[in-house]
Structures are given as C-alpha cells and as structure tokens.
C-alpha cells in the first residue's frame, strides 16, 4: 500500500511555488496580483502540473477499461480543479490547503468511511461477491462427469478466421475412433476420410475446418470455457484444450422460486437475503454466499453475544492497565535516565546515549520474537541466567509482567530521547532559583522540572497511550494473548481488545470483515474518548504553567 501509493503526483503539488514572494499580509489585493512571475516558479509550476496531467491520464486508462465511470468522473473533476486552482491567481489560501486536504481525504477519510460501511455488511469469507457470483460458482462447482461416459480427445477448430470465426470442438472417442464436430447446436459425426487423427486420438486436421494451435486457442479462452455442446446425456465441455468430457450441472438456479435446485436429490435451497446465503428447509446452507447489508447486526452481536461481551470488561480493564503500564513505565524509566544523563557531573554521556538508543534502533518485530524465546521456561535466557524455573507465559500474572517488561525495554529509549530534548529546553535559572530558595533536589524536581516536562510531553504520552492501547504486535508476537484459562480458549490473560477481536473475526470459520469493522469502531470510540479527555486536561495544565 505504502509503496503503491507513493506516486500520486497530483496531490503532491507543493503550494509554495506560486510566485507570491512579496505578498506580505499587509499588502493590498491588487498588489499581490501583480507579484512578479519568476522563471523558476513558472518552470516548477509547469513541471508539476504536467506531472499531474500525466498521472491523471495514466490512471484513467484502467478506469475506462474497468468501466468505473464514477471514478473517472471524479478523476477528471479533481484534475480539472487542480489545474484551475494553480493556473488562476486567486484563491491563495486554497493553494495551500488543497494538497493536504486531498491527502487527508484519500488516506484518512476514505478508509474510515470504508471501514464504517463494511461494519454494516456481512463481508467476509463466503460472502465476498455478489449473488450472481455465488450462483455462477454453485453451478460451475456442480458440473460432474456423466457416469460411464467416454473421455474425448479434443481439438478446438473453426470454419472461419482463427481469431474470430465461430468455434467448433472436434472430438474423437478413443474407444470407437469416431470423430465428431460439436458446437452449441449439437454434435455431428464427421466422415473418417475427411479427418486426420494423431496417435493419441487428437484430430490434427479436418476438411473444412482450421484446427487452432494452443496459442490461438488460448487467446479465445473465455469462449472455449463457455462453449457447451448439448448431448443426450448432458453436454460436452472442454477440460483444458486437449480433452473434453460429457458433464452435467447437478445444481441449477431457478429465478422463479429464487432458489437453487439439485436435480439428483430434488433438494432446494432458497435465497435468504438477510444472511446472503441459499438455505434449505432443514437449515443446511450452501457454502457460496454473497455480500448483503445486515444493518446493525454486527454491532448488536458485539453487545449481546455472551461469547464476545462476556470477557469484554475483563479484557478492557487489562487493556487499560497494559497501555498505562507501558506508557507510564517507559516514561518514568526514560525520564530518570534522561535526568541522570542531564546532570553536568555525569561523564561519558554520549557513550551512554548511544547504548540507550540501541533498543530503539532495532526492529521491534524481530525483538518481540527474541523476547518471546527469552521467556521460554526451559530454554529461555531469562530463566537460565537467573537460575529460575518460572513458567513465564504459562501463568496469568507472570505473563502480564513479562509483556510489560518487554514493552519497557522496547519503549524507554524513545521516552529518554524526548525527555532529554524537553529537559534541555527548561531554563537552568528556574532550578537554580529553587536551590537558592533552599529546596531539596526532589522538591525542585517535583515543583518545577516535572510540571514543565509534562507540559511538553503530555501530547506524546497521549499518543503513546493510544498506540499501546492497540499494540497488536506486542501481544500477538509474544504471548498470543495467553495464557488461556482451561475453560475458555477465546480470551486470554494478556489479550488486548485488538488481539481478542482479531481471534474473534479471523480465527473462526474464515475471516469476518464486517464483524471486525464493527469491533474496531467500538475500539476507536474508546480511544477517541480517552484521548479527547486527556487533551482537555492537558490544555488546562498548560494554562496553569504558561
């Protein structure tokens, strides 16, 4: 996604190239309009707009081919809008706002809307496509070879041009050696004198027909797959390009009753538009379903299904503990190390800083797996080093402590970095003044340094909290949510809402994107509320100290 999305040149239009250099705020409208046009500015503008046009044209072809007219109209409108905006000398603020807004719409608003719209459907495995897709799949899957029928050697031929002429199947029965030509009208026996048959039974030439080679035939693949030659027992169909068999579709869709009928058993499955599946009277449903809108069903399932809502609050509580523990722990550790290295009496600070940065520089994905192995009961470094026999991931509390320890190790260098930066911004005079007033270093830290640090770092702490609240990798790559109570394999002691949801939506019978989207909306709400409340409190704090 990231790489493929890196080329949207239209939206990368830097706004600053408009020659507005002398356009100071105090200047009048007319003065701004007469700003000089520099050669560089013009050149950059031409290049960027050219790029925009180029990319728009490049993107238009696939849209035309896929007949996505709405998309094409939007593409044209956006491009035209961009050209208008940057070719006119008016709308200066829009020149700055539009590129960012386009990015915001494309990468934030659309995915969020798409997720939200998915939450109202049953989109998932077995319910991906349309009803028509499902019907085609059911009918194709039910084509069976007529019992006891012959296998035919097949040659695809035509009586006209190899690329466009109507297709004919030349089939020979290896048993009897008879050769027939078949098309939608049925089979006609051919005179043996008119045909040349290769040793394998394949017809290589026939009077009046042009036999297609594989290359020619495969260019008309769709027509060959669709060509069905009716016979008395069923129909001849191609199995590849060199064999044909007599097959019969056992199941067929009947639009009259909106149902699928099985010709062998007589059983019917009626379409159920609420669940997007064909269901028989005895409750049996066909595997191939389709996507339907299910309204609020996914949401109500989250709230009412005891398997989902039962462990929800326990998980939520631990989820908060984990996010607060990870954020708070890393912050405290990082801050104290920063304070220690900030002290002027400390020597070799650069050396320590490099060492401390190391965990941050390593890919956390790999480090999480390493830590998981280090906590192994019998082979892990932690137990071997300390001579312990703790079953770390096997017990509720040791597993929780272990994952927080891992987070601490992974996260404190970041907090150390930002705390170091913030500390350097606090004027020395303030702390010196406290010591003149006779405050102990602790009092000075409590009353001056910490509040000022918090003003600077609060937004980062909130962001870190929100990140850890949904820190899927931290759990999934270490404990996988375990240990699980013996009587409930769905909710483990270290499960976060997100890992719990993942198991729920993707661990069962195929992926259920609709349900996953509904739960992610719930999680989004929780995180948004927590963040909003925290930001409000931070603002109050800032007012006190600024």
């Amino acid at each position, binding site marked *: *996604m990231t790489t*493929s*999305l890196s*080329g949207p040149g239209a*939206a990368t239009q830097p706004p600053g190239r408009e020659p507005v250099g002398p356009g100071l705020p105090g200047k009048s409208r007319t003065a701004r309009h007469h700003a000089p046009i520099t050669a560089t500015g013009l050149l950059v503008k031409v290049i960027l707009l050219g790029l925009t046009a180029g*990319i728009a044209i*490049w*993107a238009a*072809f*696939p849209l035309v*081919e896929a007949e996505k007219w709405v*998309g094409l109209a*939007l*593409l044209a409108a*956006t491009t035209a809008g961009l050209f208008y905006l940057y070719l006119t000398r008016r709308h200066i603020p829009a020149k700055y706002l539009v590129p960012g807004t*386009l*990015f915001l719409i494309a990468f934030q608003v*659309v*995915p969020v*809307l*798409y997720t939200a719209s998915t939450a109202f459907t049953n989109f998932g*495995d*077995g319910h*991906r*496509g349309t009803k028509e897709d499902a019907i*085609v*799949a059911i009918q194709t*899957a039910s084509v069976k070879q007529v019992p006891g029928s012959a296998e035919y050697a097949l040659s695809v031929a035509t009586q006209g041009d190899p690329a466009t002429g109507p297709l004919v199947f030349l089939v020979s029965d290896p048993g009897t050696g008879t050769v027939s030509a078949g098309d939608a009208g049925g089979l006609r026996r051919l005179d043996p004198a008119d045909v040349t048959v290769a040793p394998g039974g394949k017809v290589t030439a026939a009077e009046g027909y042009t036999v297609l080679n*594989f*290359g020619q*035939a*495969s*260019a008309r*693949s*769709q027509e060959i*797959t669709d060509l069905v030659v009716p016979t008395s027992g069923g129909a001849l169909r*191609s*199995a*590849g*390009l*060199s*064999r044909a068999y007599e*097959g019969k579709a056992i199941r067929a869709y009947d639009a009259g009753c909106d149902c699928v009928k099985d010709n062998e058993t007589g059983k019917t499955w009626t379409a159920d538009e609420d669940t997007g599946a064909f269901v028989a009277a005895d409750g049996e449903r066909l*595997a*191939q379903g389709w996507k339907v809108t299910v309204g609020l069903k996914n949401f109500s399932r989250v709230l009412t299904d005891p398997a989902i809502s039962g462990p929800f609050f326990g998980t939520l509580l631990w989820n908060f503990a984990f996010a607060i523990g990870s954020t708070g722990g890393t912050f405290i550790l990082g801050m104290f190390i920063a304070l220690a290295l900030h002290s002027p009496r400390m020597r070799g600070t650069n050396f320590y800083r490099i060492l401390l940065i190391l965990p941050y520089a390593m890919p956390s994905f790999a480090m999480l797996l390493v830590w998981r192995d280090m906590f*192994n*009961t*019998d*082979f892990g470094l932690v137990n071997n080093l300390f001579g312990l026999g703790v079953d770390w991931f*096997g017990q509720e509390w040791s597993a929780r402590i272990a994952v927080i320890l891992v987070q601490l190790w992974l996260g404190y260098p970041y907090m150390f970095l930002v705390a170091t930066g913030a500390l350097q911004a606090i004027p020395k005079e303030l702390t010196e003044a406290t010591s003149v007033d006779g405050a102990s270093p602790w009092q000075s830290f409590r009353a001056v340094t910490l509040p000022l640090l918090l003003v600077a770092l609060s937004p980062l702490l909130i962001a870190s909290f929100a990140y850890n609240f949904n820190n899927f990798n931290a759990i999934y790559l270490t*404990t996988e949510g*375990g*240990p699980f109570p*013996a*009587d*409930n*394999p*769905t909710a483990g002691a270290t499960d976060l809402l997100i890992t719990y949801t993942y198991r729920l939506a993707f*661990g069962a*019978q195929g992926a259920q994107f609709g349900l996953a989207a509904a739960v992610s909306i719930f999680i989004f709400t929780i995180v948004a509320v927590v963040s909003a409340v925290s930001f409000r409190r931070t603002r109050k704090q800032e007012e006190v100290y600024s």
Partner: protein
Amino acid sequence: MRIRTAGVVAVLGLALAASGCGSDSSDEPAAKESTKAATGGKLVIWADDKRTAALKPFAEKFGQENGVTVEVQAVSKDLQTNFVTASQQGSGPDVVVGAHDWIGNLVQNGAIDPVQLAAEQKSGFNETAVKAVTFNGQLYGVPYAMENLALIRNTELAPEAPKTIEDLVAAGKKLKAEKKASEILCLQSGQNGDAYHIYPLYTSGGGYLFGTGANGDYDPKDLGVGKPESIEAFKKIAKLGEKGDGALKRSITGENSIATFTGKKCAFLVSGPWAIADAKKASISYDISPVPGFAGGKEAQPFVGVQAFYVAAKGKNKALAQEFVANHVTTPELAVALYTAEPRPPALTAALDQVKGTDPDLAKFQEAGKNGQVLPAIPAMATIWDPFGKAEAAIIGGADPAKTITAAGKTISGQIK
C-alpha cells in the same frame, strides 16, 4: 490492504492518488494482457517463493512448446488470502499452487473451479492424495506432493525404533538419567499448543475431529472434540505432560524443537520432511519410523497434507489453465523438479518411484503416513486449530482434561456455521 485499495478505487475512486494506486497493483497487468491476448494468450501462475523457482523453467518450456506466455509470480506471504482477494477484484492469476486444506475456503469464496481428470490420470496418483483434493465429490486440484509427520530418531542415542509411546518415554527417561539428553521427546507444543503435531497421539488415544458422512467427506456436524473419546485421549496425553512423565512440554515450540533435536539434546523428534535438511546439515545419524501410539491404544494416525495446483475460477485464461493443470502438471518431470526444490514425497506414483532410489527417507515418510488421515479441507477445520491447540497446551500444563476439552468443544461448535 488490497481491499482497502479496492475500496479507495471503487467506493469513491477519489483523487488521482487513489486511482493511481489501484491501477498500480491490479489493473495495469490486465491492460498489458489484453493486448497480448490478441496474439497468443498468457497464463499467470501464483506460487510461494520456493516453488516459483522450481516452476519457472518448466513453465517457460510449456510456454515455448505451445506458443503462449507463462508467467510465474512469487507471492511470499499470505498466498491464500491474497489469491481470494485478488480473484474477487478480477486481478488474480489463472493457476495457484497451495495446500489442499485451502480448498474449503477457496470453494466457499468461489475462487477455484473443479478439474476434470481422466480415470487413467487419476490412477497415476497416490490414492490418499486424490482423496485430499476431492471436496463435495469434485476434484478441485491436481496434487503434486504429500507430507506427514513421522518419528525421527537419533540412532546414536536410540538405535531401536520404539513400538509404543511408553517404550519411547522409557528410552527417553533412561537417556535423560544418563545425561545423554536433556529432553525425552521433541514434540512441539508451545504455550498455545499445536493441534497438527499432537494429532497422532490424539488418534491413538481414540479421539477424532470430525466424523465422516456417507460419501466419505468429513461432516462438520459430527464434532469429535468434547466427546468422551476425546477426553479419554487427552487423559492419556496428560500423563505424558508436565505433571506426568514430562515428555510433552509447553517449552518445546516450533522454533526450538528441531534445533533441540539437531543439538542432540533429545533423541526423538516428531516432525515432517522439512526437518530432514536440518538433520543432515547437523550430520546427525537418524532414522525415520511411524509415530508410535499408546500401548493397547489405537493406531497413531498423522495428518496427511497435500500440495496441489488449482484453476482459478475468475482467471482470464481458464481453458489454458485447465490444460496446464490437467495435462501437464500430471507429468512426472514437473513432480521431480518440484521434489528437487523441496524434498517432499511426490504424489505422482511414477515420480515417487523415480526419486525413491536416491532418497530412502521418502519411502519411510510414506510408510509413516500410510495409515494417516487426510487433513480436513472443510471450512469448519479453521475453527479447530486455535481452541484445540490451547486445550492441548492447558492439559500438558496440568489442567483437568475433561473440563478443558469440553470447553474447547463448546467453543468450536459455537463457531461452526
């Protein structure tokens, strides 16, 4: 991610950014193809990295002989999911290579078509392999390799193949007492269990996952987990666990079990053909025998998995794909080439006979899998892995078998649609 991409294009098709992205990943090849299709036709095959390398020369030869373009594309991650998503969007391949237990999910998503093989073609394959790719009475793929678990033992430490699991534990305990090994048995479990590796012992204890219906297919309505037989089986497994003999341990994971064996810390390893390369590299003298069952119990039956070629239902060149899969994958040359890329027993009897002489391990693995059970391909199987594995881990750790397995059975049946 492709879904989101699709959403960006389809739902709003907004801005150049979105459309540029969609065309980059999916629509562009389609555009190229349509121009080419006019002249010769093109076959696109998706496989994982290892198999892509093995397939390439063969695919090129097929292309040259038949005047078509064959493109083998490596999809190194989540091949199944990517295939289903891409198929839905119409940007998928014509042929895909993968494990047979995908079939249930691929069929419910309408992503693959049945393949019609002539009777004599079918008879060339191992019977179990054909059974594995048969779903709802239809053949959905052409198998090329099989795999199953076996007991691999270090012959320096354990010269005799144990007849029962009790013999194995006794031998392992003796080695441990003599400090020749630190573990009795390397059978991977991990903190959350491993249903695939415990399955032979589960069957030997009398347990089953799904009953079979009249047509020989697995029946998702007849769930064996939680039934009295499964509790009995896990009571026996519990005796081997951490609170019992200590032969089964949660600390032995998929990451360390083979390494512990090749480090000569355990004499017995339950694993598949993929472990052999490591054993050879560590120059361990090993032998392969069937996984032993409990004394007086049933046979220990490992799962048999099959790798197969499938024809994509929404491919652009289905006739050519059918031709390739039905008439060219069935030749021994390709099977042997794929065996060379990764040594798993070929499903084609003729190919197996060809390589058996140079690789005695193959026959031994096949012997170990002779009584094996085909890994269920029904979609309901996806609900088994996680709860079953967790129950296994809990029981190995000392939890009450009856309570744990009953809960797992309840969870599984609640998820089966």
